[in-house]
């Protein structure tokens, strides 16, 4: 704002007579004043949003902190609030997120590359684009119903981690696609032209230049999507996640050949938001504290994912030299 005002001032200065200099200064002054008013309003609005969030988080923290302990993380749910823990819930959440990420990220990035770089301007592309944007606004319970019919019954995946992970992957696909496209579009056109000029094929241009440079933005989209997915309750309940489960999925690493096992994807499971929901609706008040503590863990998991993304983004941006 400031810079712009100065520019107009200097630009119009030669044509304006010298005696108008006072008026000009007054105009600049009022421009600066308005800019400051706007900045203060902006700060107020931003801090309001942050404060509300902070208040909610602190409330959760004060309620939940006394319950947070190693036992809380390593115990299974129990009817006794003091002994109840979230082991099956956080392990379930983590594994479901893993499936979601493995399923959603490649598909979403692939779709984004296709739509940005390959798709021609025709009705078919328009149709896909309209669908993708609309899907981002579909209520999550609808995805749950779709997944119940498709994954749980039709494909016979049952009420498994695999079914839940794929459901959430569907849910966050539009989010990642949209932000990945933005990231691809943000790469300057001359980078592409330079790559083509050096004789690169389209795929070489994409894999050697576009993707590395847009990685930061794509990561942001992935994290937004994952943060959305980890808090979902409705679609997971719809496909039949359990509430009480006091055992863990089979270990992914085994002692026998081939040492890796995918059995865990078929396991029954529960996730943190469901455990919270169940505790919040209990008559016993001690369970409310457990719910708050579980909320803190859920937030911590989200923040950890965020932190990882910020770190990766930083590393990526450091390497970009243009």
């Amino acid at each position, binding site marked *: 704002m400031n810079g712009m005002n100065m520019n107009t001032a200097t630009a119009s200065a030669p044509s304006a007579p010298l005696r108008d200099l006072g008026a000009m200064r007054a105009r600049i002054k009022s421009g600066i004043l308005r800019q400051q008013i706007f900045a203060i309003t902006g700060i107020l609005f931003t801090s309001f949003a942050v404060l509300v969030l902070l208040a909610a988080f602190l409330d959760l923290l004060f309620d939940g902190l006394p319950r947070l302990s190693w036992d809380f993380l390593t115990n*299974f*749910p*129990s*009817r006794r609030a003091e002994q109840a823990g979230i082991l099956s819930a956080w392990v379930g959440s983590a594994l479901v997120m893993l499936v979601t990420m493995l399923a959603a990220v490649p598909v979403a990035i692939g779709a984004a590359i296709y739509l940005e770089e390959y798709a021609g301007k025709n009705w078919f592309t328009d149709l896909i684009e309209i669908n993708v944007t609309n899907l981002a606004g579909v209520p999550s319970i609808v995805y749950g119903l779709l997944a119940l019919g498709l994954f749980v019954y039709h494909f016979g995946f*049952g009420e498994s981690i*695999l079914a839940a992970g794929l459901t959430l992957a569907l849910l966050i696909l539009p989010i990642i696609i949209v932000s990945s496209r933005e990231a691809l579009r943000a790469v300057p056109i001359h980078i592409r032209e330079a790559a083509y000029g050096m004789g690169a094929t389209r795929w070489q241009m994409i894999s050697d230049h576009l993707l590395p440079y847009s990685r930061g933005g794509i990561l942001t989209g992935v994290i937004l999507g994952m943060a959305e997915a980890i808090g979902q309750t409705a679609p997971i*309940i719809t496909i*039949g*996640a*359990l*509430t*009480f*489960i*006091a*055992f863990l999925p089979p270990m992914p690493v085994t002692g026998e050949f081939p040492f890796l*096992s*995918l*059995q865990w*994807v*078929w*396991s*029954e499971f529960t996730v943190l938001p469901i455990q919270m929901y*169940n505790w*919040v*609706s*209990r*008559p*016993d*008040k001690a369970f*409310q504290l457990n719910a708050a503590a579980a909320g803190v863990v859920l937030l911590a998991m989200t923040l950890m994912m965020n932190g990882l993304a910020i770190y990766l983004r930083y590393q990526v941006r450091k390497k970009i030299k243009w």
Partner: protein
Amino acid sequence: MTKLYINRLLPGVLMGLAAGTLQAQQLVKVDGSSTVFPIIEAVAEDFQKSTKGKTRVTVGISGTGGGFKKFCRGETDVSNASRPITKREMAECAKMGITYLEMPVAYDALTIVIHPKNPFLKSATVAEMKKLWEPGAQGKVTRWNQINAAWPDAPIKLFGAGTDSGTFEYFTEAIVGKPKSSRGDYTASEDDNVLVQGVARDMNAIGYFGYAYFAENRDKIRALPIVNEKLGKAIEPSAETVINGTYQPLSRPIFIYVNAKSAGRQDVKDFIGFLNNHAQRLVKDVKYVPLPPKAYTYNQETLNKMRQGTKFGGENKVGLTIEELMKMEAKL
């Protein structure tokens, strides 16, 4: 090249995944009512500990209706139900060839609650409550003196169960006389803690929910004694009045249904046996009212003799005591 690779790899991966399902460990699957959930959670927790994790139990909360849907498709071994199985569900199960054992596991007393400092409500009759809750009262009955001239000219604030719950079904049947028939202009929530907060904040409020939520919040709300028509006396809900059958018509048994085929399996047999052996203690632990001991002995007989079917014929019967229930014949 890449295409060929994917074509070969994908079926292999999927088959590898499928092999996993076949090796899954036997486990007892329970789903259904969230009202019954705390009891079965307690049983499952202690049972799993007693078998040192050899037998696994999972419990879901799909609701009574949602639970029966899965149960009648043969997906679960045990279904929790806050009301007896309905005719439609019986037909659904029959179609899929699923037969079952019906076992009451505890009492649930619906409690009508008011603000602790409410000066005029000492007790109420079912007729008065009907006047207040029937569909015709919607928008018309809005002040307390419209129900009973002795009560003040004060606004009525209503709080009640969400329309999907078994609680709503039973309350409307017991009070209004027809299941699911209620006025709609009240604050409804599936989360009873919300209702507790609502009633606790308003002097003129009245609401209803499960006894456990009242028992945990005695400092915030008061139970309204309801006149038992047979005795002609107002009865307050308590473990005692529920067990001796005087708190009527608002107390009812809640059930589990066991898939008869699953009941032949040793792990399910052990689980149900554990439930019947320890129910007295466990039910009290989670703040519900246990049935008299002989009811659990009777349940065990039901399991041993494989007495299949329901005693309700697809209808919810209001005011049935557990003794009367035990004498009845179960039919599929």
